[in-house]
């Protein structure tokens, strides 16, 4: 069992795999996500980064915060680039030209994963490349100022689907990436959240150690575009779990296991309030939208519990 102390020693120093001097927004949880995930690998890690917040803020020439081999090509292909790196690794190792053992991590935001990078991800999972795909999910295109993505939740106002006289924001529910990933019959899929460092670290360990592809989806509240006080990032992450909006669970060799079951699930309003993207839902006349959201969350949770209980394999 890892401890916070062990993890802290791996992430805090100048010899950690990602270091200070990056330009994430003050209070952005992506820093905590990536440093803790990288620390979970007991082998050197090669990172393949999709275009997005993480890529932009960590490498503004001539500065890079990466202390591990890293590459960015374009927006939609982190999984395909990872597939190429993994193939090169296998080939060069087989030919005796390299010796080191490594882990390969592809990482993207929800835009680069749920949307534009979806095909490349699916292809790489189907071909069973040995790599982990990490998505830091801030529920929209936050790098460019809050445009809608396939991960944006129902009811959220975004700049491309704004709330207005005739619109309450996004009319569709978000895509369930974890289950879609699991449908590829890969050895490990995990859903984690930035505030739960130990759970995140353990899931990252399992992902790195899996024999074959792994997918790790991590909720990452965006202080800038959900517009809350930067000190509250971890609180919003916690609330997402405590409301069952973002259950912490994993699918290991197809078997679902829920890691945290809130004893008293909080109403979804607790998570929504204080976020600018949901502000309009609290206006008179919009109560039914919150109610609909609550029902969807409860239904999804009940469904997840049933799958877990049944023991049926994905």
């Amino acid at each position: 069992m890892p401890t916070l102390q062990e993890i802290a020693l791996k992430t805090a120093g100048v010899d950690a795999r990602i270091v200070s001097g990056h330009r994430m927004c003050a209070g952005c949880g992506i820093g905590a996500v990536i440093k803790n995930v990288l620390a979970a690998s007991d082998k050197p890690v090669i990172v393949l980064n999709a275009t997005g917040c993480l890529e932009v803020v960590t490498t503004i020439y001539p500065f890079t915060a990466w202390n591990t081999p890293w590459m960015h090509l374009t927006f939609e292909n982190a999984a395909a680039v990872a597939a190429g790196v993994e193939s090169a690794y296998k080939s060069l190792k087989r030919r005796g030209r390299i010796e080191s053992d490594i882990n390969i991590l592809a990482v993207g935001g929800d835009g680069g994963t749920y949307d534009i990078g979806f095909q490349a991800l699916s292809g790489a999972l189907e071909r069973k490349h040995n790599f982990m795909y990490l998505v830091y999910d801030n529920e929209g295109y936050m790098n460019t100022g809050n445009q809608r993505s396939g991960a944006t939740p129902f009811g959220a106002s975004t700049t491309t689907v704004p709330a207005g006289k005739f619109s309450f924001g996004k009319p569709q529910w978000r895509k369930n990436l974890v289950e879609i990933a699991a449908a590829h019959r890969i050895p490990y899929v995990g859903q984690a959240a930035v505030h739960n460092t130990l759970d995140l670290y353990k899931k990252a360990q399992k992902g790195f150690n899996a024999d074959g592809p792994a997918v790790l989806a991590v909720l990452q509240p965006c202080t800038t575009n959900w517009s809350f006080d930067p000190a509250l990032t971890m609180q919003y992450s916690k609330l997402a779990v405590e409301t069952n909006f973002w259950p912490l669970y994993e699918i290991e060799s197809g078997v679902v296991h829920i890691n945290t079951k809130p004893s008293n699930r909080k109403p979804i309003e607790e998570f929504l309030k204080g976020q600018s993207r949901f502000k309009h839902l609290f206006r008179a006349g919009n109560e039914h939208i919150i109610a609909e959201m609550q029902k969807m969350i409860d239904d999804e949770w009940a469904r997840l519990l049933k799958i877990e209980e049944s023991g049926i394999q994905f």
Partner: protein
Amino acid sequence: MSERKTWQEVELGVELPAATSLGYKTGGWRVLRPVWNASECIHCMICVGYCPDMAIPVVKSEEGVTGKGGRVFKGAVRLETNLNYCKGCGICAHECPSKCLSMVREEEAEQASCKL
């Protein structure tokens, strides 16, 4: 940044050596400064795990350091926040279970410590 490179000097294939961002001090972004009261700290490492800027140094201490209630904490212990990089988000202070961190307006902290 020193003198900018010419086209003859830039790296082949835009390949950067690792960790050069340590030369970019994001501490200048800070509006609020975390003030750490070491005597109230329990070295739980929650702030370290959360710090988005990797701005809280941690060392392994055999002899230990004195923290809350005069207790000696051994193993991984945190040090003073590295203000070269801390952007002052306040997550550490907000999440600290022993309330050993507080956020103070940078201008006041600076004037108080006569560092102008």
